[in-house]
């Protein structure tokens, strides 16, 4: 644990990507199994256990130190975990016996099984055994506030470097691997064969698009791109395969790789529906939509199908689910991801036609020969082919004809061009009780977008919203707030907002203005919750740069001053 803590400590100060890689690779080289595998899991966000509340940490330090000295120290250091880590006094017993510090695997395995009542005692023991840096990392880990400034991708790349392997290979294997990744490290160190992905229906890391800006078009040739609608549904991956016994396994994954098959039992038969004698495993990248009489329903209708543990026949009947396919990642034994998009598209068209299932269709491609043409299509989708489905069109997607299917958000390959530029995805950060009839609910929300500064990636608040949601949604948000409060300051609750944990709002607003009074430098006019994105991990929320760019466009096109008084009004 101390060695892992040292790595985290060093990474926190190191700004260079390549240098971070070297530090992580060197850690993997020096550290034995299973600790290094668990470190890889921690760095890639693959660890999960119940977190300890900051109040517990305060209680522990209060039992060991003078309250005045603690208050002076906390005031000076400004961070609870760090203050406690630095001032934690070891007992004389501990100093005499000098017990060995726990390994990372001990910490992780204990935390996964530890009951709530045993937490204080266990934490105390570890705090006694670890050094300052070890205590700091432990406290950050158990309170769920470990921010390392390293992406999962970077950590996997560092692992690949251990065996001079292509990071892409590790990425492909990843879905079939689990902590502590013994088989992966054995392969990387040349002690074993490449691990086989044994899952018959594994998830493939999803390829994402960049938001396009006006200025991008100048550098792009329309002939290099294909276009299709960006449907306002849920991006998913539908995978079908045959297990060792010959049984067909069908799964739906969210774009973060979460298995959401259980929520959509009505779609699964379609993933198994091929004629058994001609069955081929496949992986489709597509959008989940609710269709009624072959008309795409709004996202609000689709939302009724989200986050359901049990799905009633009534729900399935009234909200029939449908898969609209964008891409084909594998077919039979062929991994298609390295092929150009146009080839994959041809395979997809043939495959969907052969499948011939009413619940699965293909997202049409849009004809255009210039950026002007696609601009017109985006501005008015109905006559361009969307017809009555136009309200479910969120914008257009532009994909390079030669683009391979790459994990993450590779530069210059895919672009998304949303219809309404005044919608952003923001993350709920703080909540306060409302007024009047809402006074018992947390109904005032402060939300933020991502930015990067000296401390790495973090969320910066950009606005507050008090309306836009239904009463039913309010109940859900209120419950979320109460269950995910990390700290309380007077009336304000800090709600968990990390890369992988938190609630994303799609916020609609009327305009933007520069505001020196706001930490972010921008203020929104009439912000409101447009919809709740329970399906979206906070890491995929928008960035401050997006708002800043909107600001430039706003001021260029709308010279009228924005009424400051209207900003943040109830």
């Amino acid at each position, binding site marked *: 644990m101390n060695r892992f803590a040292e790595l985290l400590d060093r990474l926190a100060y190191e700004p260079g990507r390549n240098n971070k890689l*070297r530090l992580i690779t060197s850690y993997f080289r020096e550290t034995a199994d299973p600790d290094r595998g668990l470190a890889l899991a921690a760095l890639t966000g693959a660890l999960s256990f119940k977190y300890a509340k900051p109040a517990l940490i305060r209680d522990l330090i209060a039992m060991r130190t*003078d309250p005045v000295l603690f208050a*002076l120290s906390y005031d000076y250091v400004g961070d609870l975990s760090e203050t406690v880590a630095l*001032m934690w006094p070891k007992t004389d017993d501990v100093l005499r016996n000098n017990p060995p510090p726990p390994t990372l695997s001990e910490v992780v395995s204990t935390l996964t099984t530890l009951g709530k009542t045993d937490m204080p005692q266990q934490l105390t023991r570890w705090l006694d055994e670890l050094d*300052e840096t070890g205590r700091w990392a432990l406290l950050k880990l158990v309170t769920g506030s470990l921010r390392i400034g390293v992406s999962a991708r970077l950590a996997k790349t560092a692992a690949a470097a251990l065996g001079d392997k292509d990071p892409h290979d590790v990425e492909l294997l990843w879905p079939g691997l689990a902590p502590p990744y013994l088989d992966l490290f054995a392969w990387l160190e040349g002690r074993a064969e490449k691990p086989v992905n044994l899952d018959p229906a594994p998830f493939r890391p999803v390829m994402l698009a960049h938001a396009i800006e006006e200025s991008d078009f100048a550098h792009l040739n329309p002939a290099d791109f294909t276009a299709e609608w960006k449907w306002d549904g849920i991006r998913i991956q539908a995978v079908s395969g045959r297990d060792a016994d010959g049984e067909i396994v069908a799964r739906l994954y969210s774009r973060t790789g979460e298995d959401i098959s259980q929520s959509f039992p009505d779609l699964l038969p379609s993933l198994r529906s091929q004629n058994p004698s001609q069955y081929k495993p496949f992986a489709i990248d597509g959008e989940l939509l609710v269709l009624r009489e072959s008309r795409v329903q709004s996202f609000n209708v689709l939302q009724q199908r989200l986050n359901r543990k049990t799905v009633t026949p009534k729900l399935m009947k009234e909200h029939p689910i449908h898969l609209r396919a964008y891409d084909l990642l594998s077919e039979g034994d062929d991994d298609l991801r390295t092929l150009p998009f146009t080839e994959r598209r041809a395979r997809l068209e043939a495959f969907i036609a052969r499948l011939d299932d009413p619940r699965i269709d293909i997202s049409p491609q849009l004809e255009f020969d210039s950026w002007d043409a696609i601009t017109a299509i985006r501005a008015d989708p109905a006559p361009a082919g969307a017809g009555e489905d136009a309200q479910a069109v969120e914008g257009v997607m532009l994909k390079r004809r030669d683009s391979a299917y790459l994990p993450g958000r590779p530069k210059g390959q895919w672009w998304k061009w949303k219809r309404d530029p005044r919608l952003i995805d923001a993350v709920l950060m703080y909540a306060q009780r409302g007024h009047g009839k809402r006074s018992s609910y947390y109904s005032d929300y402060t939300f933020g977008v991502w930015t990067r500064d*000296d401390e790495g990636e973090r969320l910066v608040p950009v606005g507050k919203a008090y309306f836009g949601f239904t009463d039913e949604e309010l109940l859900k948000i209120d419950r979320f707030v109460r269950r995910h409060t990390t700290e309380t300051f007077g009336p304000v609750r800090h709600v968990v907002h990390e890369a992988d944990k938190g609630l994303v709002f799609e916020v609609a607003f009327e305009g933007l203005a520069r505001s020196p009074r706001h930490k972010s430098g921008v203020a929104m006019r009439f912000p409101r919750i447009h919809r709740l994105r329970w399906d979206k991990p906070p890491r995929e929320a928008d960035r401050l740069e997006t708002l800043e760019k909107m600001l430039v466009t706003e001021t260029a096109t709308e010279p009228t001053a924005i009424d400051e008084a209207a900003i943040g009004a109830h």
Partner: protein
Amino acid sequence: MRPQDILKPGPSGLACLPGGFHIDPVRPVDRAVITHGHSDHARPGHGAVLATRETLDMMALRYGENFAGTTQAIAYGESVRLGDVTVSCHPAGHVLGSAQMAVTCGGTCIVASGDYKDAYDPTCTPFEVVPCDVFITEATFGLPVFRHPDAAHEVRKLLDSVALFPERAHLVGAYSLGKAQRVIALIRAAGYDAPIYLHGAMEKITRYYEQRGVPLGDLRMVKGMKKADLAGTITLAPPSATADLWTRRFPDPVTAFASGWMRVRARARQRGIELPLVISDHADWDGLVATIGATGAGEIWVTHGQEDALVHWCQTKGLVARPLALVGYGDEDETDDVPGGADAQESEPA
């Protein structure tokens, strides 16, 4: 005689009326007793100065030979009579030549310890506990969050980083008087015997350490070196230099800083440090409270630093304690005024 009639804080510093002198005065006075060579304690322009040989030499390096009217050297263990008091000199373990000055008058002994540390330092005489009635302690790191790790462990971090990044230069910010030489000695003790490079501002004081018998191995000036040849090397420089244009002569430098402040992450981040090394020439919290206990003093006067916490701690232990409102003593890591370092501004105008 009451202790406050022997030593009393005033505008020029701590005044000893019955002895007719000030300790570490911040303004020119007739007679000064000086604990050590750091510029906030050792200032020029006094009539007569009593200090260790090393402190006097460092003052001459910084201010020129005529930094005082007259000087008198005092060795560790030696006593001199000044007016109605006796002053004796004891090692403080802070930097080469640093001393605690014990002032005895009418059976009451007050120890002014200046800056001190009780941690290992191969470049100076170790700290010695002086039993006394009143102990005057610094409080630079007077909060329980300051617990300095073993300096050898911090140096190991530096050497590991040098091994991991052989194509980069390692630039270690270290206060020029004391810290730099201690860091070099610790690097040598860890078995590193390649040349260590110095910023020009550190040359004279470092050579002085060598003259006084502190072996520091192969030291070279960084000036005139080719950029590429600095890959994989270690250079020591005044803290201010590590943040300026001067660093451009190094290949992709890793910026380290050796200071007790590096214990607190926000302080390290503020300075843009990539490799914080928690190495301090001041006692940490544990060192302060252990020393206070060991002196047997019933009364503690706390000066420069985080007085509140230390005074509070003393009071919980039943000791009489008060902060001494002395001004003018800083924290050397924040302002490096180098003895003999007239060329400290190699490239930086301010």
